[in-house]
């Protein structure tokens, strides 16, 4: 019997979103990216064009992060200097983009003012030439002040800002519209809410190509399979023409992977789990590698070795496999 290659017919493709803006485009970025555009399931080059490779953004915070020592040691000396920290991520560790997490804005923590937060984002913009992804401290009222201030101060930079949620999307959507940024629409592991939120945001007239989906992933071992299936369903929906599920997907890999006990428990405490740092690195890279197969386009990560592993994984998978 002759082998007949089975190619699925698709009616549509994943949407395109552009991150960052060059001088000519009104920003200051040396590099910009176009994300999404897949016309097939992830890395199924044999049945549709995979136009753009997924990208990896490394996380930088405005306060010293509460990360395990095995991660922090790679940023020694720069953890209190967001600009230098970001530069190290890009120059030494090959980050495609920088993810600025304004954890210091938290009212129960450093409670930084919106002006201080803007200054941090500006510092990072000045230090690196790659696009920025910016999120707040995840306290609604405070984020609405901080993120709106960041959006305004960085007009034209074409940032990716989050998180918009079903109960709190209006002020961020408005700010992104007025100041020309992209928005992260976060839904709580629920494909219906995911779709609904995209509808709500587009109804406010923010363009379809300015939205990125955050499905709220779980880390390896802690519910990752729920996100995996939701992402697969969203991709299948996008390919069948469902515009409101077709936005590129972002995965908060670093945060979720390093929360797991397995990522940072010492070998003394759990000898049966083996060496601590390599286990942690793999916990993060495995979370990312799994979600790459479900259709992730933007990966927010922490450990430099995990970043290099996943970039290598992406490079290998971007090679053509047509028959």
């Amino acid at each position, binding site marked *: *019997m*002759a*082998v*007949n*290659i*089975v190619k699925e017919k698709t009616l549509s493709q994943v949407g395109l979103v552009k991150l960052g803006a060059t001088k000519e485009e009104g920003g200051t970025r040396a590099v910009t990216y176009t994300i999404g555009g897949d016309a097939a*399931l992830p*890395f*199924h*080059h*044999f049945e549709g064009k995979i136009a753009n490779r997924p990208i990896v953004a490394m996380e930088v915070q405005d306060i010293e992060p509460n990360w395990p020592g095995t991660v922090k040691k790679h940023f020694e000396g720069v953890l209190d200097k967001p600009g230098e920290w970001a530069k190290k991520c890009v120059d030494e560790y090959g980050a495609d983009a920088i993810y600025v997490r304004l954890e210091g804005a938290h009212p129960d923590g450093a409670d930084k003012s919106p002006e201080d937060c803007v200054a941090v984002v500006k510092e990072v913009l000045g230090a690196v030439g790659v696009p920025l992804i910016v999120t707040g401290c995840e306290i609604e009222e405070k984020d609405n002040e901080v993120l709106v201030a960041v959006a305004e101060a960085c007009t034209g930079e074409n940032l990716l800002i989050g998180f918009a949620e079903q109960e709190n999307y209006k002020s961020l959507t408005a700010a992104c519209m007025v100041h020309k940024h992209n928005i992260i629409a976060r839904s709580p592991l629920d494909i219906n809410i995911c779709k609904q939120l995209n509808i709500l945001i587009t109804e406010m007239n923010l363009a379809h190509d300015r939205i990125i989906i955050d499905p709220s992933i*779980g880390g*390896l*071992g*802690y*519910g*990752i*399979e729920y996100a*995996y*299936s939701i992402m*697969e*369903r969203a991709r*299948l929906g996008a390919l069948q023409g469902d515009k409101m599920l077709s936005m590129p997907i972002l995965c908060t890999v670093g945060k979720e992977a390093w*929360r797991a*006990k*397995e990522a940072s428990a010492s070998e003394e405490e759990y000898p*049966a*789990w*083996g*060496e*601590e740092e*390599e*286990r942690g*690195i*793999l*916990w993060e*890279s*495995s979370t990312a*590698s*799994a979600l*790459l*197969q*479900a259709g992730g386009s933007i990966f927010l990560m922490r450990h430099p*070795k995990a970043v290099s*592993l*996943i970039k*290598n*994984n992406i490079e*290998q*998978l*971007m*090679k*053509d*496999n047509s*028959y």
Partner: protein
Amino acid sequence: MGLTGLEIYKQLPKKNCGECGPPTCLAFAMALANGKAQLSTCPYVSDEAKANLESASAPPIALVKAGDGDNQVEMGDETELFRHDKKFYHETSVGFKVSDSLNEEELEAKAKEIEDLVFERVGLQYKVQFVAVVNDSQDAETFKKAVAKVAANTSVTPMLVSEDPAALEGALDVAADKKPLIYAATADNYEKMTELAKGKGCPLVVKAEGLEALAELVEKVVALGHKQLVLDSGQTEASKIVGDLVQMRRQAIKKKFRPFGYPSIVFTTEEDPLAEITQAITYVSKYASIIILNTTKKAHVLPLLAWRQNLYTDPQVPIQVEQKLHEVGEVNEDSPVYLTTNFSLTYYSVQGEVESTKIPSYILSVDTDGTSVLTAYAAGKYEAEKIAEVMKKVGLDDKVKHRNMIIPGYVAVLKGKLEEASGWNVIVGPREASGIVAFAKSQFS
């Protein structure tokens, strides 16, 4: 992809004799379609119809078995392309390469290292499936000795890697009772390999370069009468391996293309062990039935086995823990008591953090049908009366002398009612498990 009742009915004698049990042939056909009856109970079905029905109802991907006893490995028998459509059934088997060029001590050490790759996490046990002895020496006698040495030092099922039938024959002399997986039948050796595998009742990998050549070779092997097969399309680039794995799975399930209706095997190609595992994660995601690795370090293997377990979880059945009062550490009558649900993920997140507080504690997991705190509350499965009842049932009053129950922050609203229903003082804990350590520090130090 079974037949419908009507399709089956067409093949039946239509006598409506009722001797099979159901009163009519149509009812019998319906029962067959639902897997609730056996065709053999019909005394009048023709041989031709029997053959048609059997081949049509064969699973799209054959179930293939290797190993014996407790270490038996089952592969294949998959019916889905996406886990959300139903579930994936047989977890990817993980194996490790061991060269027959190692000396005796090294072989023994390696075998023991592989034997030791058993992990406990979140109440589950993760195991590995194959030890792949590779005939690097190209010498039959050396191979045989190495296989014997490895088999004597681990209970993990052997996979015999040699394309030399003579070397394999020798190795089978010492390992056939373990039902090893034989690797591999190629265009050059398939007749002898098939004879060996068939003779010893062992599964056989069929290997060829590319899908076309592979399908051809599989048909030749099947024609020789062996059907316990595993497929290797001979690719070495990750991207092409993904392509072939997807094609084989699709063609078997959607087109019922028989030559690809068997489990698949892949080898990692990255040298850096961390890159190797990251690559293997891709193959687990994309249907590989067996993955053969080089690294045998615990820290490397655990994340891979965790992903395998996650992916093969039944999406319709949340993993649950028992409803009971769990003890963390050396508890006593002053130990704190935490309340959670019986959803495995929720429970083990809480348990891990409670363990990290270094304060011996009780955790009460209330049966919420395996749902998380918020979901359970929204569905009315986490009511004050029910929780109070469980508290009584597990005899909490006699376990501790204090009367303080720590509840999840997300259900702070339960405080008043639960205090009323249980007579206990309710302390609202953090919303997320990750807040437990800080919470315990402020409460109990």
